[in-house]
């Protein structure tokens, strides 16, 4: 296994971000755009029409062979054995302790080939984890550094992509995946995302990334597509209550307390299944609850209090531009996770009132 280079990487779209005037930050070892025009404007573009994301930092593993499905079914919490060709599913890589190694999407590309998309910060760790648990008749290929990922998300994404693709992307169901040409580039196109909107993720080789990016920006000009940075990606995903690995979930959290029990198919065998099943049966001691904070913005690491006593901590917090509220996720003792419970978040030494609310904070109206 190759050692991870300590250098800061650039995606094949780095020059595009520079041309578009993006503010860049280092994230998971990559120089990534945090924002272009501004987080709120970008957030609203995705909710209102469409936004374009460079997610080339994400990792892509390919597992091929007759044993690929069985290997993934043992490694991932969700029902991978039941995945049809052309379908994708969200799930968790779990360990024997029943905690979360990563959250991933598994795509069944063909009869005997699967793609696993992992978080950029976890590529090396996940690769080691998967390789250590590889079953028979399966070949593993980490193409993370050669694969670019461009996402187009928002209500107008489908028409923009349809104008550039030879595949009938309108007919692709949610969590469907297909091989297609996009702006003449060979691509794997999936109707998946991390924004709470309809949208697509388009996987191409690094060499084709700029062509696809430019074509989507140009085709989206009329509906007003905007490039979207990691800042808005975070506000979008938090409104939709998607977990962020390293913030809301990690190897100290289990799927049940994180509210991800629905991703665990407990009637199959997978790493940590018994621990997770026991946890579910006895009920978690704490839960990841949604909070609306009344004055001030809660941030990762802030303490949650009740009557001045620290009872938990915030894992994610921001201002939600669509819900127009300060929203947060926090681990709190199960009895305090009941909807309507009034707690507080300690912001700069002051206990600011926060109410436990139903999540997601935002759901799109589906037709």
């Amino acid at each position, binding site marked *: 296994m190759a050692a991870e280079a300590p250098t800061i990487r650039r995606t094949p779209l780095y020059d595009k971000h520079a041309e578009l005037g993006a503010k860049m930050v280092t994230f998971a070892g990559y120089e990534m755009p*945090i*924002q272009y025009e501004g987080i*709120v404007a970008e957030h609203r573009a995705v909710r209102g029409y469409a936004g374009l994301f460079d997610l080339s930092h994400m990792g892509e593993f390919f597992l091929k062979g007759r044993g690929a499905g069985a290997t993934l079914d043992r490694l991932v919490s969700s029902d991978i054995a039941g995945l049809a060709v052309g379908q994708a599913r969200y799930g968790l890589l779990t360990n024997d302790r029943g905690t979360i190694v990563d959250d991933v999407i598994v795509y069944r590309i063909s009869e005997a080939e699967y793609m696993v998309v992992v978080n950029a910060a976890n590529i090396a760790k996940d690769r080691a984890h998967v390789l250590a648990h590889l079953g028979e008749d399966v070949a593993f290929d980490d193409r993370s550094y050669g694969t670019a990922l461009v996402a187009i998300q928002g209500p107008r994404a489908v028409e923009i992509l349809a104008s550039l693709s030879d595949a009938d992307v309108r007919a692709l169901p949610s969590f469907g995946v297909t091989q297609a040409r996009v702006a003449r580039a060979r691509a794997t196109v999936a109707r998946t995302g991390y924004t709470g909107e309809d949208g697509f993720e388009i996987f191409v080789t690094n060499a084709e990334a700029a062509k696809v990016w430019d074509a989507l920006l140009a085709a989206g000009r009329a509906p007003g597509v905007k490039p979207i940075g990691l800042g808005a990606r975070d506000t979008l995903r938090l409104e939709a209550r998607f977990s962020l690995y390293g913030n809301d979930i990690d190897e100290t959290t289990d799927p049940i307390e994180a509210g991800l029990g629905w991703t665990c198919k407990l009637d199959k065998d997978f790493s940590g299944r018994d621990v997770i099943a026991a946890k579910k049966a006895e009920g978690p001691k704490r839960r990841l609850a949604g909070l609306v904070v009344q004055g*001030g*913005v809660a941030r990762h690491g802030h303490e949650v209090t009740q009557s001045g006593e620290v009872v938990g901590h915030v894992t994610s917090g921001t*201002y939600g531009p669509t819900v127009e509220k*300060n929203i947060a996720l926090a681990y709190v003792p199960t009895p305090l996770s009941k909807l309507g419970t009034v707690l507080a978040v300690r912001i700069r030494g002051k206990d600011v009132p926060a109410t436990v609310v139903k999540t997601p904070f935002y759901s799109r109206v589906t037709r």
Partner: protein
Amino acid sequence: MSTVPDDLKYSKEHEWVRADGDLVTIGITHFAQEQLGDVVFVELPEKGATVRQFSSLGVVESVKAASDIYAPISGEVVERNVKVIEKPELVNSAPYGDGWMIRVRLADKGELAQLLSPDDYRSHIGETAGAGGD
């Protein structure tokens, strides 16, 4: 709108001061709001509170992060901008106008001399001296 108006004084921490006798108005600069991004929350001291030069007087939070606002001068708060607490985006849209923060009765006029002139502030933020206008 100039990004560094000529009739104001500035602090290195990117606050501005408009002096009117011994009453001064304080806000954060165009450069500061641009660095912060979309401002979503402003916390200001109550009327009657005392602020000390170069100590924190309040907080502005953008979507990304919280930043302290430092008092460019010392004195007693005679008014705080209720409008900017209700509509924090005024900090972005009108940093020198409706996005002002507090009015303070100067404790020591001499402190004004420790602040930067528009030209000094321009070079502090890397703008060419004298380049007004937008």
